[in-house]
């Protein structure tokens, strides 16, 4: 054993959480699993482990990605580590309950198989307390509408990586308008070639540059929707 090896179980709670932020940053999956199990073993609620250790750590990763300090490969490794921690926490969160922020249906549009950004958004939305139904890739307008009908989410999220597939988002939104459904949902869009102007032009509520922005935008829109309903 190396002299400088850190024994997670020997750390105090505060030290362990900070160490987990570092481990998440470095994409260390097994260390994150160990950290989650240690905190749960010490009586932490699953919700606190999720928010204070995982989401807070992933927020640092997201900020450094936004600022050009980290790049996609590193973010993917961090996301994988967080995913493994969430895998442990998910059933515990169901048992113990956690604040629910709202519900989201998300998917990559028809003709597009790219799902890295979409998966990251789905994971961070779950981490922020949203229930997420992930439709996967290559979704037709019918599939989106069926999911909206069945799930009655607060938010529809659509993702596209290609210039050639991003116009399909407008097809979905226009169909929602035709059916009188558009105002029932918050529509968020994202993907590398998109921008705010495109989001406005197709009639989305907001364009989200990255997963962190998606979470903050979703929270703000859901709060606004709830305020409108209670007014």
């Amino acid at each position, binding site marked *: 054993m190396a002299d400088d090896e850190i024994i997670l179980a020997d750390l105090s709670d505060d030290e362990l959480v900070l160490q987990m932020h570092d481990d998440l940053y470095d994409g260390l999956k097994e260390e994150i699993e160990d950290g989650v199990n240690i905190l749960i073993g010490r009586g932490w609620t699953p919700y606190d482990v999720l928010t204070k250790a995982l989401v807070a750590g992933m927020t640092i990763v997201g900020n450094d990605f936004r600022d050009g300090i980290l790049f996609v*490969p590193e973010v993917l490794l961090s996301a994988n580590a967080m995913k493994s921690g969430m895998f442990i926490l998910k059933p515990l969160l169901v048992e113990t309950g956690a604040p629910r922020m709202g519900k989201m249906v998300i998917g990559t549009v028809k003709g597009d*198989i790219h799902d890295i950004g979409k998966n990251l958004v789905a994971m961070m939305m779950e981490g922020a307390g949203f229930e997420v139904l992930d439709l996967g890739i290559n979704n037709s307008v019918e599939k989106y509408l069926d999911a909206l009908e069945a799930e009655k989410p607060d938010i529809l999220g659509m993702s596209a990586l290609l210039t050639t597939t991003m116009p399909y988002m407008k097809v979905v939104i226009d169909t929602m308008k035709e059916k009188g459904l558009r105002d029932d949902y918050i529509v968020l869009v994202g993907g590398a*070639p998109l921008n705010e102007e495109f989001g406005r032009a197709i009639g989305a509520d907001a364009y989200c540059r990255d997963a962190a922005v998606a979470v903050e935008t979703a929270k703000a829109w859901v709060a606004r929707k709830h305020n409108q309903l209670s007014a």
Partner: protein
Amino acid sequence: MALTPPDDATLTTTGLPLSGPSSTADRVLLIACGALAHEILALKQQNHWSHLDLQCLPANLHLWPDRIPAAVEQAVAAHRAAYDQIFIVYADCGTGGLLQAKCAELGVQMVEGPHCYSFFEGNAAFAAKAEDEFTAFYLTDFLVRQFDAFVWRPMGLDRHPELRDIYFGNYTKLVYQAQTNDPALDAKAANCAARLNLAYERRFTGYGDLATALTQVAAARAAP
């Protein structure tokens, strides 16, 4: 006189500096992606388009497509006074319409289409295949030669090969769109497909709509 492009690594990171004649009257400047340098120079030579000058921007701008419009604007501004006509040899290239908007603002034309995979195949033919081929990953001659610089290393697969299936798990095949007949490139492309765990297909495209677009540009201002 034929102009030899610099090596691909230079085209990737630096581009190709303008080496036109001292007099630029009646000449056309092509501002192009470095990934197209070989093809444009080949077309120039084949067609004797001696009145077309070429400057290439670094091909690796494609790793940050949002930087392409500003780079094109800067290049146009640098040469506008010297040339009667400037043509931008980029397609949309992941800029989400921003390059088209920038070109319109600058009053210059650009190549039609979403990206080079489309215009090499022919935009109409590529669009017709879209429904059946959206699980294909495309490489051109340049990208086969620069596979490690454009795909393998930027995606971190040299350091973290375990990420391969996260990136490519939804793809089914690698299509090598060959601009030239080069058995060595064919073999290298097949090896790229194997490294990505994808089926392999070679498809000869030649220069496709790139040739069409440049022919129109060249003809509009015929050589003196």
